[in-house]
C-alpha cells in the first residue's frame, strides 16, 4: 500500500478525540503549558464532532454557587443516590467545585445562556440544569480549543496508543490513519489525554434498516476511549453500569426539559399512574436506603433513574403499555409549546422530523415513550470508564497516585466519558474534567515524569501493519468470489457489528431480553465473544471509509468484552431498570458495596477483576433551601 507515514514528533500533550472533554483539555493545557506543544487528533472535524455535534438546549451540570444555589457536595449526594451509591465521590466533588467556572467562560465566549429575569440568575430547567440556546455550543468550544492548540489534525481515526519502550506501562503517543487520504499518522507525545467518547451501537438498537443510525447517543460514539485504554492495559471501573434511557419512542428525543421545565408526566396506555405500584416490590429488591418514595416526596432526594425505568419496563410487560408522556396540558401554553419544540431542534432534530412525519402534535396527542437499548458511557446518568487518580487534596490513598485524572497507565489521562465513576458530568462536567486533566498532564511533564521515552520503529511498523490489515485482507480474498458481500474468508464491518449487537442483546441484557441476564448466559456470551475476537482479525475493508468502520468495530468489541466481564463479576442486581442478573435479583450491600475494577493484560488478553473500596462524603447536612425551578 502506498500510504505515507507522517510523524508528528516532540508533542507534550496529545488530545485524542476533541469532544467536550478533549476541547476542555486542549484549551486549558495552553494556560499551564504556554511553551508546550499541544496537538489534537480527532476522527471527525472538531467544529461538529462528538455527542454535542448538533448542539444542546441545556447545560445539565451547573452548581450556581455564584447565585447561592448549590454546593458541590449537594451534587455528589444527588449523583450518589441516582447511581445507587456507586460513584467516585472525590472525582465528583472535584468536578462540581470547578464546573461553574467552565460555564462562566462559555458565556463570555458567546454561548447564549437564558436568564431568569426576576432573579438575575440563569434560567433553571431543574436543580442542576440551565437552559441555553446551544446550537453552536460545539463550534464555540472548538474555537477555544483550536486557539490553544499548535495543530489540529481532523479526520484522524486513532487506532492504538503508543507505549514507551524504556519504562513499562508508560504511554508514548498514539497512531491512526487519515480517513480521507489513508495516510498513516504517528504522534509521539509525552502525555495523552483520551477524550474519545462513549459507546453507542454495541447493544442491538431498536431501530432497524435505514433507521439504524437513530440511536440515542451519537452513532459515531464508537467506544474508542475504552477500546484505546483497555488495549493499553489501563484499569477500568464500573463497566457493567450501562445505561438505558426512557425517551420519546423512535426519535429518542430528550425528556429532561419536558419533565423538569414543562412539568409533563407519564401514564400508562390506559391513562393511569403506574409508577408507585411497582415501588413496594422494588423496595424489597434494593432496600429502603435506595428507594423510599416518602422521603423522596418530602425532600428533594430523587428516585434513581434506573428504578423509574424499572416501573416502565414492568408496566409494559404487564400489558398496559405504551407509556405516554402527558404533554397535552403543558402544550396549551404557547410559550411552553415553543420551548418543547426548540428543545428538540437544539439537540435531537430527528424527533421533530418524526413528529412532523407522523402528524404527532403534542398539543392534541400524548406521545409515546420507550426504554432504549443500553449504552456504555461515563458522563450521563452512568459512570463507565477508566480507573483514574483523584486530586491530592480530596482523594483517599486507594484513589490517589499522583496526578488528577491519570489512568493506571503513566502519562495517560482521561476526560468525559473516558473517566469512570463520574456520572452526571454531562457537557460542562466533561469539559471541566478535560481542564483538570490538562493541568495535571502539564505538571507530570514539569515534574520530569516523561523523560527518556523511547518508541522504536519496530513498534511503529507493527502498528502500521495492523492498521491496514483489513484493507489487505480485502484485496487478498475479495476476488475469490464472483461478487457480493458473502465471503468465506472474511466478514465486513457491518456484518461484525450485527453479530456483536445480537450477542450483547441476547447474552448481556439488551432490550430484546428485557435487560435480563445471568451467569450462564454471560459465560456463553464470553465464549462467543472470544470467537468473534478471532473473526475480527479477519475483518475486511474495501476502502478507507470501511477501514474507519473496521476500527470503530474493534473498539466497540473491546468495550463490550469488558462489559461482559464486569457484569459477570458483580454478583447482584445493583441497578434494576438498567439490567438484571436473574440469578442474583437483589442488591447486596454486604458484599457489593464496592467499585469493580478490571484490567486486561495487553499481552495475553486475560482479564483480572478486583473490588475497590467505596468512600463517601460525610458530615454534610443539606443546608440549601429547595430551589425554585422557575
Amino acid at each position, binding site marked *: 500500500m502506498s500510504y505515507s507515514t507522517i510523524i508528528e514528533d516532540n508533542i507534550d500533550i496529545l488530545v485524542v478525540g476533541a469532544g467536550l472533554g478533549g476541547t476542555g483539555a486542549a484549551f486549558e493545557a495552553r494556560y499551564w503549558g504556554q511553551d508546550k506543544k499541544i496537538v489534537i487528533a480527532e476522527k471527525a472535524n472538531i467544529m461538529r464532532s462528538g455527542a454535542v455535534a448538533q448542539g444542546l438546549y441545556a447545560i445539565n451540570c451547573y452548581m450556581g454557587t455564584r447565585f447561592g444555589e448549590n454546593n458541590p457536595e449537594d451534587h455528589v449526594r444527588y449523583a450518589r443516590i441516582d447511581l445507587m451509591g456507586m460513584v467516585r465521590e472525590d472525582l465528583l466533588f472535584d468536578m462540581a*467545585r470547578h464546573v461553574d467556572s467552565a460555564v462562566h467562560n462559555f458565556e463570555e465566549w458567546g454561548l447564549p445562556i437564558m436568564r431568569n429575569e426576576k432573579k438575575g440568575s440563569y434560567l433553571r430547567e431543574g436543580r442542576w440544569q440551565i437552559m441555553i440556546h446551544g446550537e453552536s455550543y460545539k463550534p464555540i468550544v472548538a474555537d477555544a480549543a483550536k486557539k490553544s492548540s499548535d495543530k489540529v489534525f481532523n479526520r484522524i481515526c486513532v487506532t492504538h496508543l503508543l507505549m514507551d519502550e524504556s519504562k513499562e506501562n508508560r504511554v508514548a503517543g498514539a497512531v491512526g490513519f487519515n480517513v480521507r487520504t489513508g495516510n498513516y499518522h504517528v504522534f509521539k507525545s509525552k502525555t495523552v489525554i483520551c477524550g474519545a467518547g462513549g459507546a453507542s451501537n454495541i447493544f442491538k438498537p431498536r431501530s432497524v434498516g435505514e433507521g439504524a*443510525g437513530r440511536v440515542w447517543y451519537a452513532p459515531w460514539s464508537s467506544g474508542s476511549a475504552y477500546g484505546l485504554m483497555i488495549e493499553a492495559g489501563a484499569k477500568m471501573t464500573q463497566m457493567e453500569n450501562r445505561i438505558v434511557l426512557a425517551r420519546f419512542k423512535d426519535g429518542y428525543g430528550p425528556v429532561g426539559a419536558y419533565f423538569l421545565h414543562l412539568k409533563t408526566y407519564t401514564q400508562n396506555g390506559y391513562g393511569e399512574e403506574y409508577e408507585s405500584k411497582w415501588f413496594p416490590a422494588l423496595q424489597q429488591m434494593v432496600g429502603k436506603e435506595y428507594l423510599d418514595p416518602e422521603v423522596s416526596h418530602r425532600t428533594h432526594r430523587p428516585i434513581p433513574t434506573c428504578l423509574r425505568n424499572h416501573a416502565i419496563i414492568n408496566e409494559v410487560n404487564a400489558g398496559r403499555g405504551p407509556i405516554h408522556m402527558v404533554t397535552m396540558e403543558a402544550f396549551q401554553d404557547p410559550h411552553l409549546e415553543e420551548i418543547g419544540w426548540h428543545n428538540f431542534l437544539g439537540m435531537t432534530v430527528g424527533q*421533530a422530523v418524526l413528529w412532523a412525519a407522523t402528524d404527532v402534535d403534542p398539543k392534541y396527542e400524548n406521545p409515546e415513550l420507550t426504554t432504549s437499548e443500553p449504552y456504555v458511557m461515563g458522563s450521563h446518568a452512568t459512570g463507565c470508564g477508566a480507573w483514574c487518580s483523584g486530586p491530592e487534596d*480530596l482523594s483517599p490513598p486507594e484513589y490517589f497516585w499522583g496526578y488528577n485524572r491519570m489512568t493506571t497507565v503513566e502519562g495517560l489521562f482521561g476526560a468525559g466519558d473516558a473517566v469512570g465513576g463520574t456520572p452526571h458530568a454531562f457537557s460542562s462536567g466533561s469539559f471541566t474534567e478535560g481542564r483538570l486533566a490538562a493541568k495535571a498532564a502539564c505538571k507530570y511533564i514539569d515534574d520530569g515524569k516523561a523523560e527518556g521515552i523511547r518508541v522504536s520503529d519496530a513498534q511503529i511498523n507493527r502498528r502500521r501493519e495492523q492498521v491496514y490489515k483489513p484493507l489487505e485482507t480485502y484485496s487478498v480474498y475479495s476476488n475469490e468470489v464472483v461478487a457480493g458481500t458473502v465471503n468465506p474468508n472474511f466478514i465486513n464491518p457491518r456484518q461484525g457489528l450485527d453479530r456483536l449487537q445480537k450477542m450483547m442483546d441476547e447474552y448481556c441484557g439488551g432490550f430484546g431480553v428485557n435487560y435480563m441476564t445471568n451467569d450462564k448466559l454471560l459465560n456463553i456470551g464470553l465464549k462467543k465473544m472470544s470467537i468473534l475476537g478471532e473473526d475480527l482479525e479477519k475483518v475486511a475493508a474495501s476502502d478507507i*471509509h470501511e477501514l474507519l468502520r473496521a476500527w470503530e468495530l474493534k473498539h466497540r468489541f473491546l468495550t463490550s468484552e469488558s462489559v461482559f466481564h464486569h457484569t459477570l463479576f458483580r454478583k447482584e442486581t445493583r441497578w434494576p431498570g438498567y439490567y438484571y442478573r436473574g440469578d442474583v435479583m437483589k442488591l447486596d450491600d454486604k458484599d457489593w458495596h464496592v467499585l469493580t475494577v478490571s484490567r486486561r493484560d495487553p499481552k495475553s488478553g486475560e482479564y483480572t477483576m478486583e473490588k475497590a473500596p467505596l468512600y463517601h462524603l*460525610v458530615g454534610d447536612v443539606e443546608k440549601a433551601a429547595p430551589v425554585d425551578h422557575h
Partner: protein
Amino acid sequence: MPTFVYMTRCDGCGECVDICPSDIMHIDKTLRRAYNIEPSMCWECYSCVKACPHQAIDVRGYADFAPLGHSVRVIRDEEKGTIAWRIKFRNGKKDMELLAPITTKPWGSATPDLGKVPAPSKEMRDSQLLFNEPKYIRMDDGGLHTLQSNGLEIKKGVQY
C-alpha cells in the same frame, strides 16, 4: 432521518463532506456531487444541512418508521448569529417557524488566546485552581471549595 442531496442544487463544493461527523457525505466521482453513502449511520444531526451554502441537502425521515411528506428545513446564519427553522407536518395542518440565537458575540471573536495571558504563578500551579479561578467560580472573592471549607470528611464503607 437520513440526508439526501438535490441534483440541481449541489455544486460539489464539499462543505458537507468536510463537516459530517459520521464521514458519510461523499462526492460521487462521476456526478461530482455529494451524496449520503451510508444512511444507516446518519444521526440526522443536520450538521451538513446547516453547512451547505446552496441548501442542497434535505432530510427524509428514516424509512423504517417515518412516513413520507413532512419537512424540517433550517438556515443557520453566523453573521446574524441566528438559526431559523421551519417545520411542516405531513397532513399540512401544522406549519411552524422557530428562530433562536446561536451566539451573543461577533462570530469567532470572543475566545481567548491563553498563550498570551500572564503565566500562572508557582502558588497557582501548586494549588487546585484552574485558569480564571477562583474568580470565575463565584464571580466575587470566594475561594475554591474543599473538604475542610465545607465541613466534610471522606470515609470508607456504607455511610448513609
